[in-house]
């Protein structure tokens, strides 16, 4: 391998380029998986023609269609806020990918406070959703935006508490450090606590991303597309579809990293150790995406007040109790 010396600026640009290519491609692939998984669960084929093999180019074709769509800004909308909102939704999602380790040394930036950074950045997007809801001059969008905000406040807490327990177990906030600290068997270690934390994290993450069955902010049968009702063309794609997909994949990767041992092989067995960590990481992320989509297509939608009750009366007390149990485990085991 030739010796390449890059300045900090050049390294930064390369990292940016990597994120800006990988994330949209990942989101496109996610869109395709979404179509196909939904179709097969519903006893149909899904897109089959575009691109030849099983319609692999369908999401690409959809993207091209959206590029050609007219960009409509409602006359009564607050134009500056309206145009800015999709960017504020999408940018934090991109930033999530900075601290996710694809392999032991393959990480854009191994921050010491990686986990904290993930949680903090992960919830910025809701400001964009609220902006979109408010500036659209549409009552449905407004209801959707407010629902999204209420939902985030309720579900940020279980995620924070579950992550805090993970940080306690690992003794570090660095994401690589957390993966290194995890032992086989993943997910159920320490006994019981790991699985419970995973379930809490999953519920919280799904609610924060407003994925069904927690998709009240967008609830297509009630609020059309919630905050993004008035958006069209590329703004809709970036603010809604791309952001949702990229967010889902990011959270799948985070879940795989925090709970499933990230880039480590699923069982500590010699032949498996030789498979590169990248492969394990993608397998586990793909499994998480599958799980999220499976839940998504199976359940009906909850109601906003039921969701709030579920968060405040069940999930948060449970996660507090889990912190206590984890503390006991860390002290005595």
């Amino acid at each position, binding site marked *: 391998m030739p010796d390449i010396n890059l300045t900090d600026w050049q390294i930064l640009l390369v990292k940016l380029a990597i994120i800006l290519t990988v994330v949209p491609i990942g989101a496109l692939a996610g869109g395709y998986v979404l179509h196909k998984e*939904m179709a097969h669960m519903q006893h149909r084929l899904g897109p089959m023609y575009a691109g030849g093999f099983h319609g692999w180019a369908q999401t690409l074709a959809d993207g091209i269609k959206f590029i050609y769509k007219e960009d409509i800004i409602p006359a009564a909308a607050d134009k500056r806020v309206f145009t800015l909102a999709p960017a504020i939704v999408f940018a934090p999602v991109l930033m999530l990918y900075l601290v996710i380790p694809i392999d032991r040394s393959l990480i854009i930036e191994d921050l010491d406070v990686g986990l904290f950074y993930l949680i903090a950045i992960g919830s910025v997007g809701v400001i964009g959703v609220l902006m979109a809801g408010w500036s659209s001059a549409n009552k449905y969008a407004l209801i959707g935006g407010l629902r999204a905000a209420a939902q985030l406040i309720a579900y940020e807490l279980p995620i924070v508490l579950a992550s805090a327990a993970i940080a306690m177990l690992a003794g570090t906030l660095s994401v690589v450090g957390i993966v290194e600290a995890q032992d086989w068997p993943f997910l159920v270690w320490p006994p019981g606590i790991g699985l419970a934390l995973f379930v809490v994290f999953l519920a919280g993450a799904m609610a924060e991303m407003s994925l069904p069955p927690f998709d009240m902010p967008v*609830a297509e*049968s*009630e609020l059309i597309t919630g905050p993004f009702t008035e958006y069209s063309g590329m703004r809709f794609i970036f603010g809604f579809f791309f952001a949702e997909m990229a967010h889902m994949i990011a959270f799948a990767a985070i879940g795989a990293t925090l709970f499933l041992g990230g880039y480590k092989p699923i069982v500590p067995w010699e032949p498996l150790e030789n498979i590169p960590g990248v492969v394990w990481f993608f397998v586990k992320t793909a499994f998480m995406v599958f799980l999220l989509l499976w839940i998504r297509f*199976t359940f009906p*939608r909850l*109601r906003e007040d039921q969701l709030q009750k579920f968060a405040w009366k069940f999930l948060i007390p449970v996660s507090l109790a889990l912190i206590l149990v984890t503390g006991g485990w860390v002290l005595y085991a």
Partner: protein
Amino acid sequence: MGITEQDARLPEEVVKQLAEGRLATEQMILNVGPQHPATHGVFRLLATIDGEVLVDAEPIVGYMHRGYEKLVEQRDYRQITNLVSRMDWLSGINNELPLALAIETLMELDVPPRAQWLRVILAEMNRILNHLMFFQSFSAELGAITPTFYAFREREDIQYAMEMVTGGRMHFGFFRPGGLKEDVPRGFYDQALKGVRQVIARLPDYEDLLIGNEIFKQRTINVGVLSKESAYQYGVTGPIGRGSDVDMDVRRDEPYLVYDQFDWEVQSASHGDCFDRFWVLLHEVVESAKIVEQAIEGVPSGPVLGKVPRVIQAPEGEVYIRCENPLGELGMYLVSDGDRRPYRIKIRTPSYSNVSALREILRGTLVADMIAILGSFFFVLGDVDR
């Protein structure tokens, strides 16, 4: 909390709430429809909401009025059975039926037994198609997208059987005064049996997916309760009425055709909430499937069209015929002055009476419940406005 000068400029309602020390909120008018995904057509609901609570909701109908009653006056008796088939586009056969019966009663035509049995088979298969369609729309409105497509899969076999007979998928136009247009083709019975047996076999899946689902129960039980009294007052019939314990079914109470020869039960439930309406709808599918099975076994041979004069000219007189449409009681009041065309026709459609009860039960519910209630009020807009 005192009222400041600035507060005094606020609306009266808000000032009152502030004075009581409550969180001040203002009401907002939310126009649901005429173009909204949950209204299945151009139905409009003028909702006044306070936060997410519906203070009032006024159903506004008429965006799709096509003047069927007047159109019918301009056409002769052979044409109008095909016309009313388009009124409620999900159950064409069941629209044609009461009109055909009314003409036959007025003219004292004899309908051959085979035609009567085949009419029952077609009407019940149409009912299954209709109910499965509402099953899918209700689950889609609650956000469960997978059962939606399961319902379409089950519909397809029955739809194909209907297509074999009539050539149409929605507007069948198969009933004639005096019988049917023609006999059923070879292979129809097998196809129909295959379809209805599949529906019966797959019903447990539906129950697992929806009725047994905790989220589904939370969204529907005790939501949008329509009391028995209100159901009677508004003239609510069909699965919605039976969900509120209005134990009425024209097929059993005043049997027309040969409905008294089958072994089936009228399904009803007692709470009148969204869950009960949905439960009744789902179980009526099984009852209809049972009727189809029995009718196919017992269908007699013979002609399918009785002796009908070349020019159908009803004698002077009037008749009211009511039939059990999939959505409720469909009544046709036919007045003839002895011409080739009806003098006047008054159609009582079930959906129209059913949606009139919406305002009462929508008050005080949440926006999300409004969608569940609209979905559980199985109405077809063409049937409301006609």
